[in-house]
């Protein structure tokens, strides 16, 4: 087979951003949570947000995902019926979106899983929440998704308590992605995992992003994780975005004093 004969996907077309954020801000009393945040996220893009603890990255993620009400700004999401500002949207509608178009992967799997419900139940519950009723179909889809995140089918009836940390995190990902979301928010998804388990999870996430055409926003303090996972990077300090750009550009040729400090502080291995 000649290389030139290979059939490639059609060229990337000009498309609308999936998420358009403008002047987003959140105050905690006198203290800035995050301020003046603006960016566009396009379909299939992975955006990393880095910064130290207290830099505002988790506040920003919560505002974007609708877990926190921002004081100002817009978060416009491209829904099936056109762009909608999720900040001004009714609570019920935002919740429906969070179950269908969006997903949220917590750092601690306990925050994203029902620990007393079986692995299959954790995945199936999400399908039932969007209207699936046929038991056989739900179980089949749950088994399919457990397989995709490398959990053996004979563990379907086990509770997440019986799983290792890495398996719990993979189960949380399956629970979140089973409904076919367009946008996934992740808060330190590899935090608290052993390095070897992290690697497996990173590879899994990369594959899912590619195969499902997902967009993702990943908050982490781990620069090695964003280098491997994120197309674009945003650096936050004291609630403000101090620098953003292509991930390798921000890491290899940082422009802002804080980013230079952050990059030069990483231990070489």
């Amino acid at each position, binding site marked *: 087979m000649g290389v030139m004969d290979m059939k490639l*996907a059609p060229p990337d077309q000009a498309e609308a951003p999936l998420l358009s954020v403008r002047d987003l801000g959140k105050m905690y009393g006198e203290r800035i949570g995050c301020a003046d945040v603006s960016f566009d996220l396009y379909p299939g893009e992975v955006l990393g947000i880095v910064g130290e603890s207290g830099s505002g990255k988790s506040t920003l993620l919560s505002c974007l995902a609708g877990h926190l009400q921002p004081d100002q700004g817009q978060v416009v999401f491209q829904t099936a019926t056109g762009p909608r500002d999720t900040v001004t949207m009714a609570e019920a509608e935002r919740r429906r979106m969070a179950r269908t178009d969006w997903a949220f992967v917590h750092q601690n799997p306990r925050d994203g899983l029902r620990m007393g419900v079986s692995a299959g139940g954790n995945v199936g519950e999400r399908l039932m929440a969007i209207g699936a009723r046929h038991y056989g179909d739900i179980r089949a889809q749950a088994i399919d998704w457990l397989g995709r995140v490398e959990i053996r089918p004979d563990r379907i009836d086990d509770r997440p308590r019986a799983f290792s940390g890495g398996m719990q995190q993979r189960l949380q990902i399956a629970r979140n992605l089973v409904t076919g979301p367009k946008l996934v928010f992740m808060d330190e998804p590899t935090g608290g995992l052993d390095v070897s388990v992290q690697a497996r999870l990173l590879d899994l996430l990369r594959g899912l992003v590619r195969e499902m055409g997902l967009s993702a926003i990943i908050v982490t303090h781990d620069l090695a994780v964003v280098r491997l996972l994120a197309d674009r990077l945003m650096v936050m300090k004291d609630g403000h975005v101090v620098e953003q750009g292509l991930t390798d550009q921000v890491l290899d*040729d940082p422009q802002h004093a804080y980013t*230079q400090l952050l990059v030069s502080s990483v231990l070489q291995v």
Partner: protein
Amino acid sequence: MIEIRDLSKNFVLHNQGSAMIPVMEHANLHVGAGECVGLIGASGAGKSTLMRMVWGNYLAASGAILVGGLDVARAEPRQIIALRRRTLGYVSQFLRVVPRVPTLQVVAEPLLNLGLPAYQAQARAADLLARLNIPERLWSLSPTTFSGGEQQRVNIARGFAHPYPALLLDEPTASLDAATREVVLHLILEAKARGAAILGIFHDEAARAAVCDRLVDVRAFTPKVAA
């Protein structure tokens, strides 16, 4: 295919008294389709810096870098991402991969990212790994455990997996044995024959003579020290 116009670059070191270090000015360069241009100049003269600016991980201070019609110096991140996916390939001296991902998968990834079916992407990856003398028993292992020379060959296989119209090669024949070096030179000549524009750094003079149509000395782009 690759056109550099009046390009300049500074580094500002904020944590060292905001020292501003000019490293390049008035750089001009053209690489046509089917042509290979070699960058020369002493170590530290700016060969890799220039190459990274074309790749887009170093920012330009001023000037233009046109690759397939896109000005990398001014493009949006997502335009550069699309450029790297389809048009511009890069064989760097470092292999950066997710640990524990098998070598075959690492090499096939650029093709999977373009939407090629897995069996086709893997067939192409296997073909390249075999040509580059990576034993088949290693394909299922992560290249992070390989020797420097083996990693270099995996990097080359990955860089040549998709027939990019433009290619950047940073020391592609360094740390290779004579037989593999010949294979790499062949890959470069094949890429030229199909019309790829190649910008390369080759310390190996024989390799340079074998593949380069022209040489550009980057010392011509070194900023003149102010009197």
